[in-house]
């Protein structure tokens, strides 16, 4: 069976030979126009005059459009509150698109876009958390507060208490392929080819912009060169711009952001300031925890509200906290509209709790790992296999999260124990201490942190998927599903599902580009749910066809349909064994339908986001990582020396791809927490808008010793072949790298170093000084 085997990415050869086609590689018709936006230079201002004469007169310019030229909706928002594609008289951040240039080349469009004369009337800009709080600049009118228990009573019992404030930087997605879209006008309607995690939303927004129905717009999406959440909503303006310009000129229109423009225009991961207060009893049981999330959301809501919700949902990290209160301020600021990014707020919610826990351990003079283990959720004894009805004994009681979801599948106790063993944690702890005693300049740090990540979209209705499967009369299989391929290997996994059901080789199955006319009304490929949702939908479609073929074979051979087996490229019924292709041909001749749709909706979930209560997640994915680092206390420079990971992908659909996701997630997370720093100046300009100033980790930044293993136990919930989602959870394994750096800083002196993220050399140096007693 194909499922469970190690297979490379289905486009691996195309990727490495450069043959894989991305939007910008699609051969365009000869008269295609190229688009560029003219951008705001001000963080907040009224536009008093917009002189576009020089833009129109520039060589190659065919059309220039402003908000007034948008024929219907001027709205790219994924949220109910509108977000103009082109500014409507007021600009809200540096980099906001004001007008659109269509020219005969990409360069001509970009050059012309710089020739506009814009008169601004500056308005006060809200750039920082402090400014936003002072101006009461909140989305939703004020903070959202969730929690459980009685925090005041909890603190009253606490023997140990710490409090602090922790700054967490944002993160640029840095997908290798930038945002891109191409619109091809048709007799009626529009075809869009784009780089998007959410083709259905592109279809919807383009239809609104053209004043037509969704059936007039077809969106096709073959692959993205990385998405990471940055192509969930941020591609909408390009597709809309292309469609509107194509309608206005009657010519195909293509738009791709130059990297600088991409970084200036598009939203990033939310930066957070978290104020925390946490208290424990004498044994180290946490009795109260309080978090205030101060989040710079940027100028429009985009996906900020669910992102902030997810941060709140992960404030428990992996710990059963009886009394907890989380206050979440979603601040409207004059900056890019922060958006989805791998983890969707979860990483920020989780790391703040992990930092608070280390702070507490520091104050108590205890080992952080021991404190973590002491506060874990309860683990069901001996529960290594899927749950069967009736085996929930009265003795064991699942812990419950602060939002009321029982944690029935907790396995971090086992994972942590096994990882501590395989990574030789205790002995290395002693070695690190010995090294630090012996060395004044270079200090080492070591940390083990857990991950518990909730799987499902918190907006319940998004947890559905569709598929369309065809078996052709030559036995080849073509399928389509609502998920999008962004390098994560989704198509390979889904292909393995189909191949396993029909008992054929993966090569017999072809997955075609995601297209809104094949599978409609899809959700974004996000929330790690691509394989969970689409794998199940494809399974449903394949099983429908398989049942028809089994009935057909049963009839011709006289055995029961249940006895027909599909394996090794054959269909076997009693004594008869026919190649799959032969059965397909015979079934077609017998006028049996060889095509079917499939549909899946995640069971068991419900969520009241107003109350902050329910079961938003179908299950949790788990993992743990040990990271060892070294810092130079004179320069703040730092290196990750070794990383050991044990991660739970359930019964892995494809261990090769899952391990790739874990390695990539960890490195991307480590980048977020170490080298990747976004800097805005006092005028609200992003000064790190290219790889020259914004440093993502390179190959040489990976740990030289990098051991990744899978916790190979089936998901206790009935997911696709009992696998678990693997897109986002490993990102948070990198928290161990940050806390290892903090551990190294702690080796420099007696005080709490209060390291901020990202732990750039400057941040490390500041933390070392604080550890040594500097105020």
């Amino acid at each position, binding site marked *: 069976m194909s499922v469970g085997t190690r297979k490379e990415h289905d486009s691996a050869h195309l990727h490495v030979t450069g043959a894989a086609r991305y939007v910008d590689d699609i051969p365009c018709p000869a008269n295609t126009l190229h688009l560029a936006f003219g951008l705001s230079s001000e963080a907040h201002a009224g536009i008093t005059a917009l002189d576009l004469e020089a833009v129109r007169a520039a060589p190659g310019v065919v059309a220039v459009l402003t908000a007034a030229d948008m024929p219907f909706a001027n709205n790219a928002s994924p949220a*109910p*509150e*509108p977000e103009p594609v082109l500014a409507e008289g007021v600009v809200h951040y540096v980099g906001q698109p004001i007008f659109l240039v269509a020219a005969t080349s990409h360069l001509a469009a970009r050059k012309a876009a710089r020739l506009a004369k814009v008169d601004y009337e500056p308005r006060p800009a809200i750039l920082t958390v402090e400014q936003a709080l002072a101006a009461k600049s909140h989305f939703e009118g004020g903070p959202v507060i969730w929690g459980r228990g009685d925090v005041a009573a909890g603190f009253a019992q606490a023997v140990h208490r710490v409090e602090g404030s922790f700054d967490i930087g944002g993160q640029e997605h840095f997908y290798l392929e930038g945002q891109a879209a191409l619109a091809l006008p048709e007799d009626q309607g529009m075809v869009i080819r784009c780089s998007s995690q959410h083709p259905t939303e592109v279809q919807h927004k383009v239809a*609104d912009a053209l004043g037509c129905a969704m059936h007039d717009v077809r969106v096709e999406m073959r692959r993205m060169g990385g998405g990471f959440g940055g192509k969930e909503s941020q591609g909408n303006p390009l597709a809309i711009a292309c469609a509107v310009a194509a309608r206005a000129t009657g010519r195909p229109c293509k738009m791709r952001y130059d990297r600088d423009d991409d970084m200036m225009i598009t939203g990033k991961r939310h930066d957070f300031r978290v104020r925390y207060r946490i208290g424990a009893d004498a044994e180290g049981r946490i009795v109260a925890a309080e978090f205030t999330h101060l989040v710079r959301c940027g100028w429009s809501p985009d996906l900020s509200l669910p992102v902030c919700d997810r941060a709140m949902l992960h404030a428990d990290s992996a710990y059963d906290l009886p009394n907890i209160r989380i206050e979440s301020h979603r601040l409207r600021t004059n900056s890019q509209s922060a958006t989805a990014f791998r983890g969707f707020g979860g990483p920020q919610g989780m790391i703040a709790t992990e930092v608070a826990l280390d702070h507490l351990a520091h104050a108590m003079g205890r080992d952080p790992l021991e404190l973590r283990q002491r506060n874990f959720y309860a683990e069901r004894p001996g529960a290594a296999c899927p749950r069967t009805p009736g085996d929930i004994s009265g003795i064991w009681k699942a812990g419950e999260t602060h939002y009321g979801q029982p944690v029935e599948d907790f396995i971090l106790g086992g994972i942590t124990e096994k990882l501590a063993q395989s990574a030789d944690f205790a002995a290395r702890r002693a070695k690190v201490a010995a090294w630090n005693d012996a060395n004044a300049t270079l200090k080492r740090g070591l940390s083990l942190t857990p991950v518990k990540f909730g799987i499902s979209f918190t*907006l*319940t209705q998004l947890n559905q998927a569709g598929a369309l499967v065809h078996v052709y009369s030559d036995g080849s299989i073509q399928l389509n599903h609502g998920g999008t391929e962004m390098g994560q290997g989704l198509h390979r996994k889904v292909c393995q599902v189909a191949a396993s059901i029909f008992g054929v080789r993966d090569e017999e199955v072809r997955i075609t580009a995601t297209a809104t006319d094949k599978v409609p009304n899809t959700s974004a490929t996000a929330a790690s749910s691509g394989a969970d949702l689409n794998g199940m939908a494809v399974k449903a479609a394949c099983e429908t066809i398989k049942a028809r073929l089994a009935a057909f074979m049963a009839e011709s051979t006289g055995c029961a349909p249940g006895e027909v087996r599909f394996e090794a490229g054959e269909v076997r019924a009693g004594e008869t064994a026919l190649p799959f292709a032969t059965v397909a041909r015979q079934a077609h001749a017998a006028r049996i339908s060889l095509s079917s749709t499939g549909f899946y909706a995640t069971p068991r979930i419900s969520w*009241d*986001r*107003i*109350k902050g209560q329910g079961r938003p997640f179908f299950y949790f994915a788990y993992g743990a990582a040990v990271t060892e680092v070294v810092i130079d206390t004179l320069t703040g420079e730092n290196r990750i020396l070794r990383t050991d990971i044990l991660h739970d992908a359930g019964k892995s659909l494809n261990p090769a791809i899952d391990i790739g996701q874990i390695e990539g997630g960890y490195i991307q997370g480590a980048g977020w927490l170490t080298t990747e720093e976004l800097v805005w100046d006092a005028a609200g300009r992003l000064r790190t808008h290219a790889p020259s100033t914004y440093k993502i980790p390179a190959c040489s930044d990976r740990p030289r010793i990098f051991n990744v293993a899978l916790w190979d136990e089936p998901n206790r919930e009935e997911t696709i072949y009992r696998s678990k989602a693997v897109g986002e959870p490993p990102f948070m394994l990198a928290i161990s790298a940050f806390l290892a750096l903090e551990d190294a800083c702690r080796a420099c002196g007696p005080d709490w170093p209060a390291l901020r993220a990202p732990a750039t050399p400057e941040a490390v140096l500041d933390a070392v000084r604080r550890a040594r007693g500097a105020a």
Partner: protein
Amino acid sequence: MKPFDYQRARDLETAAEAAQAGGRIIAGGTNLLDLMKLQVMTPERLVDITRIPGLDRIESDGPGLRIGALVRNSDLSADMRIRTGYPVLARALLAGASGQIRNKATTGGNLLQRTRCPYFYDPAMACNKREPGAGCAAIGGVSRMLAILGTSEACRAAHPSDMAVALRALEAEVETRRADGATRRLGLDALYRLPGERPDLETTLEPGEIITAVLLPAPLPGATQSYRKIRDRASYAFALVSVAAVVRMEDARIATASLAFGGIGARPWKDPEVDAMLSGQSPSAELFVRAADRLLAQAETDEGNDFKREMTRRALIAVMREATGLAPASTGTDKAEVPA
């Protein structure tokens, strides 16, 4: 926001035609535009009635007053005839919203504003008022702002208006123009429906029927009027509980009492039996407790809003003590002055 057409009505006739054809009437827009931004309401066409002449006046109507449907909340609360003869109305208006919103909000629009139930406002949650038959996510949800009287299995929403509570206590009527041009008058009890199985149907107005005025009866000479609103912060918040009272004393007895309640009812709440119980009696704490028991006899609460029973009881007692002279009058309790 969904794209929509905008039409400015010249007169009531064209407005009625457009409304009958499915247009949604907009006046101040202080509630409707918020709902459109959130896509809770997605009208295809807005019919702006603010340019229709003659609807923005406060005029004498025999011994009473006729308040045009387009009179702004701020103008109404500042009008001397209202301040002296109907202080409970001025107090209620000023207790609602903010100065900027009251400058835009109209009398008719205030009556027809929609509930602030958070589940109605969130299109991702089930709501029978937004989408008949979808279910009610508010049941078992956050109920602090929900009603405890007049609710149904389909809907727990409270009517949010302060103004309408005062109008019920004053026994005001609305004047409407039906689509065929005929005029009718109806009390607020006849205007508002209870949710029952169809919480999406909030009033008895017919398609194309437009509120043209609110009619106030003659002020009661010597009556004490009071509006007390209890809320989570001092301004710019909807009522958890509010009480409007118009009480006339004679010989140390309550000659007539008219009470209305906000924040607790599916519509601006009035219970004639409570008024009848109080009228003709000597004021006493024991009498007020019985009146509160009567008011709350049918109340249905859950964990999140059970406090409203006690809060309503105390608010009723406090207001009645001041209105009957058992306690000194505080801000919010006024003697109505009737022009000679």
